[in-house]
């Protein structure tokens, strides 16, 4: 459960000057895989993720989640947004339980789970804080807890740490590694940060812009469990050199 299949997917945004954001993209993600989507700004990473999330319709091709065509958003695909997109009028606790609550899940079922997730992301002491009282990193942790509390079969993350300062970003990457290690959910992770992509994923799909295409897929076989200490290992540096070389080829 949690498998993804993009088959020759294209996406054109209509308009006076229509934009072909994705062109003939094929991508397969197996159960429990952690796939990073790496590419420069504007190459169509968000577009691809939004299609899988069900926020947008594809123009061409087929998109299957767990073997069924994606038609609309749903709690089986938890999304973590770049700016967290928490409800500013709800405290941390109510943001986290929003999903199960509106789905009519019994309290006895979601409350222990929400409490456990808040502990997992280190926010059990901030259940009553409003989003605005939190730092960017803490808001993002709420965003992750709120997605995970729904028991999604896939986690879709769109540059979730892109707006954080370097140090917070490192601690969030470690947190995500730990959380993923215990839950093993399928993850599609969008980023423009090469280090982040190598550190987190089993496989990196490198994208190019105009039209948006996946130009190369690089398996990352660094041993797990990983930690941010891996960032300086020789294997890591070798991957990075390889991808940087690839980038140059793409850009010139």
């Amino acid at each position, binding site marked *: 459960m949690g498998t993804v299949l993009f088959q020759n997917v294209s996406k054109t945004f209509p308009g006076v000057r229509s934009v072909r954001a994705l062109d003939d993209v094929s991508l397969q993600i197996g159960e429990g895989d952690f796939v990073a989507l*790496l*590419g*420069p*700004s504007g190459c169509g990473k968000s577009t691809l993720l939004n299609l899988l*999330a*069900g*926020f947008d319709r594809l123009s061409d091709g087929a998109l299957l989640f767990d073997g069924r065509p994606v038609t*609309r*958003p*749903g*709690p089986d*695909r*938890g*999304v973590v*947004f770049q*700016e967290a*997109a*928490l*409800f*500013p*009028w*709800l405290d941390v606790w109510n943001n986290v339980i*929003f*999903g199960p609550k*509106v*789905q009519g899940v019994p309290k006895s079922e979601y409350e222990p789970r929400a409490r456990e997730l808040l502990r997992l992301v280190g926010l059990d002491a*901030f259940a009553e*804080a*409003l989003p*605005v*009282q*939190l*730092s*960017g*990193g*803490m808001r993002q942790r709420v965003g992750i807890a*709120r*997605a995970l509390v*729904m028991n999604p079969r896939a986690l879709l993350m769109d540059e979730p740490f*892109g*707006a*954080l*300062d*370097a*140090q*917070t*970003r490192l*601690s969030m990457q470690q947190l995500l590694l730990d959380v993923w290690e215990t839950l093993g959910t399928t993850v599609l992770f969008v980023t*423009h*940060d*090469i*280090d*982040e992509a190598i550190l987190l994923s089993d496989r990196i799909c490198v994208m190019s812009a105009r039209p948006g295409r996946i130009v190369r897929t690089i398996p990352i076989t660094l041993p797990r469990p990983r930690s941010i200490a891996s960032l300086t290992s020789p294997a890591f540096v070798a991957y*990075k050199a390889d991808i*940087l070389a690839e*980038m140059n080829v793409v850009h010139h």
Partner: protein
Amino acid sequence: MSVTMEPAAPTDTRAPAAPAYDAPSGTAGAASGRPRGATLRRPTRLAGRVLLGLALPVIVLAAWQLAGRGGSLFGGVLPTPDRVWAAWWTWAFGAQGLGLNPYSGTWLANVLYSAERVAKGFGCAILIGVPAGIAIGWNRIAAGALDPTVQILRPIPITAWLPFSIAVFGIGPGGAIFLIALGAFYPIVVNTSQGARDVDRMLIRAALMMGAGPFTILRRVVLPAALPSVFTGLRIGLGIGWTAVIVAEMVAVKSGLGYVLWDAYYVGRMDVVIADMITIGLLGFLSDRLVLAIEHWALAWRRLQSHHA
């Protein structure tokens, strides 16, 4: 340092400036950030503000009082403040139904008549205006169906509806309530629809992702997000409501502050007219404060935001 593929890694301007660790930005800063002595200075500052605000009315009242001769100005047209005060006192606390003064002791009753009409009309305006505004701001079909009608009717001044209102509701409170509701409806519906239109698209997507249906999204996302605009509409609408009740009572109702206003003018009781005007002003002010207090309570999350952001 990590290599990024963009010219510069974007930094979140809303996040605290480079915290050494991932600490809450608001709670600690709020406690330690206030300069010492600010709490001491605050009461004196408040007293100063009150004094400053009172200066102009006191000067005007004093000049008005001193300019008068034999209790009035302009050849008996405008009574001096002491006469107005005396008239109000009789109006408020005088014995009812005795003597030649028909207003004696009727102040509270008339205040309650007018306030009740405003409350009823304003309540109707909220009950219709907020859902209609949410629908117009949120749904394209609702906007297409309702917005043109609202926009065409809106320029008709509330006073122009008076004959229509009397024809339909006759002489009585029904017409007043109708005019108040109509007058308050427009700013409420316009502001609410604006607020509903401006809801952050990412919040809607987040709710969709969490399995919320259309009605849940309207109630739990669009409505709270639009609430600041709703309150703007409520405060404007309430002001129009007071205008409408006075106009309606002057012409088409036989009770209330508007009725007394016009009746007192007719029999030359300018002291009662002015006491009435001040009463209306006071009620308008107090009811606005009430809405403001509710807004403060309902939008507490937003006050925090403006302090910390």
